[in-house]
């Protein structure tokens, strides 16, 4: 079949575009290279919804960020993803930094950002954020800034898009694209897909995809950011805390997560390798030192994980959102911070582009903008819990002890519209393995459930797709038992 639209890349950008386009009477498919969606930049970033004052006025990203921030409230209501406007502080520790903050505030207010306030009353600042450094002399408070779980947002977008008819194909690394007679033929290792319009939301690989069609007009540099995640009881923050930004980045922030943890990061290292997700000793030290400038009592003892994320830094330093010279080919590249904030505004932009391309966009009659909130054991009160377990006993079998995740939540994650098939996929969908023991107890059980529900042999379940096998074979004991069983069967 020839789709109306193919989207390459199932990160937050691709899924957001897919969901917005699913409103219209279009046939759409999304191709993802990895075994799971939300596997690239989406998976490991700060998860901050910015107010929008930070980028320079000449950049499109400033305007899409300001617009995108406003679109979050409605989207969160429709899609039920975790999102909270907790507000952010940019923290000045020297008097001469105040002037710059005031300028940011003024420009931001002029551009329609509500809730910006310069606070110089130290007592008030410390009441709002008791863990903040004593050195603070003033902060720029942005009340519309918030925190979101980027991958949970992406699952919500994908599930809702799939419910509205978008097809998702995973393990589809694009190797070749042909454009002939106004039809794009996209070849992957697994097969071939055709469409009249092609949207490139391939994240770190977007320049490679663009080059496949002969368009070589931008460069993406992978920039790595490392993070340290702290345990839930370690420290409790009220605000997203930024240092005074440098020219290249917003600096190392310290931020609460929606699950009650705290993280510090990212640093910024420019790389050549778009797969280098390694963390480094120097980097982790840098984060700790940086983080402690804002929150001096960051407890390294309570660190439960460190990880790195990559963002694609374009040579223009701005988003590349182009209706290109190739009719029907749209580039959505270089979506680094504040790309997560801008995501709904970016999707709206794509709608404009398709209209310009002459697509007739008619609203679907049966479009359903709502994705029900995934049911969580932790959200039930005692009575509801009891009722749930009576209805389905799998609510009562706890698989992950640290996060209290029952079997039913894992099964729901597997059978979601764009359900998970790997151990990491399950971890990001419903959190078994995210907690203090990092999967020590629950991993064998998660494998068992995946194996049973997907009808895949136990030892073939992977961490996150091809080449990430968890087990390599049977023990002598099991091999003998299986042999004996085989003999019996004959």
């Amino acid at each position, binding site marked *: 079949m020839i789709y109306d639209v193919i989207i390459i890349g199932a990160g937050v950008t691709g899924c957001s575009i897919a969901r917005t386009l699913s409103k219209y009477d279009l046939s759409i498919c999304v191709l993802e290279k990895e075994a799971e969606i939300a596997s690239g930049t989406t998976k490991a970033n700060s998860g901050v919804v910015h107010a929008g004052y930070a980028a320079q006025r000449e950049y499109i990203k400033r305007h899409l960020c300001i617009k995108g921030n406003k679109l979050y409230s409605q989207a969160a209501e429709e899609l039920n993803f975790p999102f909270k406007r907790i507000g952010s502080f940019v923290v000045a520790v020297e008097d001469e930094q105040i002037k710059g903050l005031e300028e940011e505030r003024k420009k931001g207010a002029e551009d329609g950002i509500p809730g910006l306030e310069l606070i110089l009353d130290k007592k008030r600042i410390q009441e709002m954020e008791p863990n903040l450094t004593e050195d603070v002399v003033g902060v720029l408070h942005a009340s519309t800034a918030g925190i979101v779980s980027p991958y949970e947002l992406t699952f919500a977008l994908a599930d809702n898009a799939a419910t509205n008819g978008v097809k998702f194909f995973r393990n589809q690394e694009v190797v070749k694209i042909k454009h002939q007679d106004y039809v794009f033929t996209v070849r992957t290792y697994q097969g071939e897909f055709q469409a009249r319009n092609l949207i490139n939301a391939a994240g770190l690989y977007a320049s490679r995809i663009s080059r496949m069609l002969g368009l070589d007009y931008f460069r993406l540099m992978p920039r790595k950011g490392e993070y*340290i*995640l702290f345990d839930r*009881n370690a420290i409790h923050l009220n605000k997203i805390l930024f240092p005074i930004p440098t020219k290249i980045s917003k600096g190392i922030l310290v931020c609460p997560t929606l699950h009650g943890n705290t993280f510090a990061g990212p640093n910024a290292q420019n790389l050549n390798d778009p*797969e280098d*997700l*390694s*963390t480094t*000793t120097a*980097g*982790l030290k840098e984060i700790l030192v940086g983080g402690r400038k804002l929150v001096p009592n960051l407890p*390294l003892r309570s*660190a*439960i*994980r*460190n*990880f790195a994320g990559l963002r694609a830094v374009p040579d223009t330093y701005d988003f590349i959102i182009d209706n290109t010279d190739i009719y029907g080919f749209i580039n959505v590249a270089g979506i680094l911070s504040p790309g997560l904030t801008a995501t709904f505004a970016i999707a709206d932009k794509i709608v404009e582009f398709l209209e310009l391309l002459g697509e007739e966009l008619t609203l679907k009659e049966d479009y359903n903008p709502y994705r029900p909130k995934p049911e969580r054991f932790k959200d039930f009160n*005692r*009575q509801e*819990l*009891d*009722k*749930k*377990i*009576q209805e389905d*006993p*799998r*609510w*009562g*079998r*706890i698989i992950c*002890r*640290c996060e*209290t995740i*029952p079997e039913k939540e894992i099964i729901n994650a597997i059978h979601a519209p764009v359900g998970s098939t790997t151990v990491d996929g399950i971890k990001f969908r419903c959190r078994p393995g995210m907690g*203090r*023991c*990092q*999967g*020590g*107890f629950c*991993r*064998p059980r998660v494998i068992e459930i995946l194996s049973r529900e997907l009808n895949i042999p*136990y*030892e073939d379940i992977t*961490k*996150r797709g*091809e*080449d*990430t*096998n*968890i*087990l*390599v*074979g*049977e*023990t*002598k*004991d*099991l091999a003998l*038992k299986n042999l004996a069983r085989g003999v019996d069967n004959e």
Partner: protein
Amino acid sequence: MNTYEVDVAVIGGGSAGLAAAIVVKKANLDVLILERDKELGGITLQCIHNGFGLHEFKEELTGPEYIQRFINQAIELDITYKLDTMVVEITTEKVIYAVNNKEGLIEIKPKAIILAMGCRERTRGAINIPGFRPSGIYTAGQAQRFVNIEGYLPGRSYVILGSGDIGMIMARRLTWEGCQVKAVVEIQPYVSGLIRNQVQCLEDYGIPLITSYTVTKIHGKDRVKGVTISKVDRNFDRVIGSEKFIECDTLLLSVGLIPENELTREAGAKISEMGGPVVDNNLETTIEGIFACGNVLQVHDLVDLVSAEAKRAGLNAIDYINNRYDKKFEVPGKIKCKAGENVSYVKPDLINLSDLSKDVIFSFRVKRPDRRLLIQFKDNKNHIIYKKKRRYVIPSEMLEIKLNLSEFKFAPDTKNIKIEVIPRPEALIEED
């Protein structure tokens, strides 16, 4: 919702919980064990090596053999237990809420609670190894479960970080499976598990133990392809230029255990700095009628010692129900026990002064190995109230000293005592 009223609720049906429950049941009290796994026995079930039972039964058993004796006894005594049952909350009023897939939510109203939830393993993030996040990194205990319970091998060639007991035992176990264990890498200058495991699990199989080294990088994007190890100096900073690459497809972590005390915290009991709850010499937490024993209290070297501690917790719970529960009693004064020179922690944290004729078992660990020592107890005025010679100490071996409180000469205003392990003065060295 089903509600149960029992004398004693035991949380955890492993080696600690079973031993405690058996003692309570033998005193003709109602006891209920809540176990989150699908069978009784806890982590001992996957410890299929021998070395268990020398204290408890005066014979050498494997883990499953050892724990089966307790399970059999529990069944003979008709102890009530619930499997696949996860406690989700202990209220400050000592009401327990738990779930399982047969009854849904259940409510338990016990007179006393014994906490026996055991411990969990430290993980990679907690110790911050830089590098990629490929498949092929497991805690030693998780690998043990895969191999001994599920019947699968997590890899073919291994480096084990940390010379904890489970790590060394897995080194031998995997060698038996035909896997290659390239090295056990230990950041300290000495082995962190028991010496007998170093001999029987590593030396007997020619597996190198590399001390004063640690893993400084993990290689491999999808699956582990190797690790870089580096020498560390006294401050555990790595020595530049000492890096060595070891090829392997799996990294096992045996870098320590942490008591599992989320529920304890939720119930409102105080937690000590080392992770276990604060207890007095009756193993009672800071909440009246809640007791703790086994690895949830402190990580033990041997399961036999867990059983012994759990029996004491059981006896103290019985005593509580018979003499204090629902009765008016005078809250006794308590003396704090503190860790002094070269001592990482002391249990109990408090000495209950209600009964000074009682025996108290002090257990503690040293921070670093040392020879020719003096173990001293001092009061807050720095008066030595007890001392004992000791030839050799090592952090991996828990020290236990049983004392009758009447042996101490407490000044009436004693607020705390301190335990220290110090080099012996010259005169004493002569006596050796």
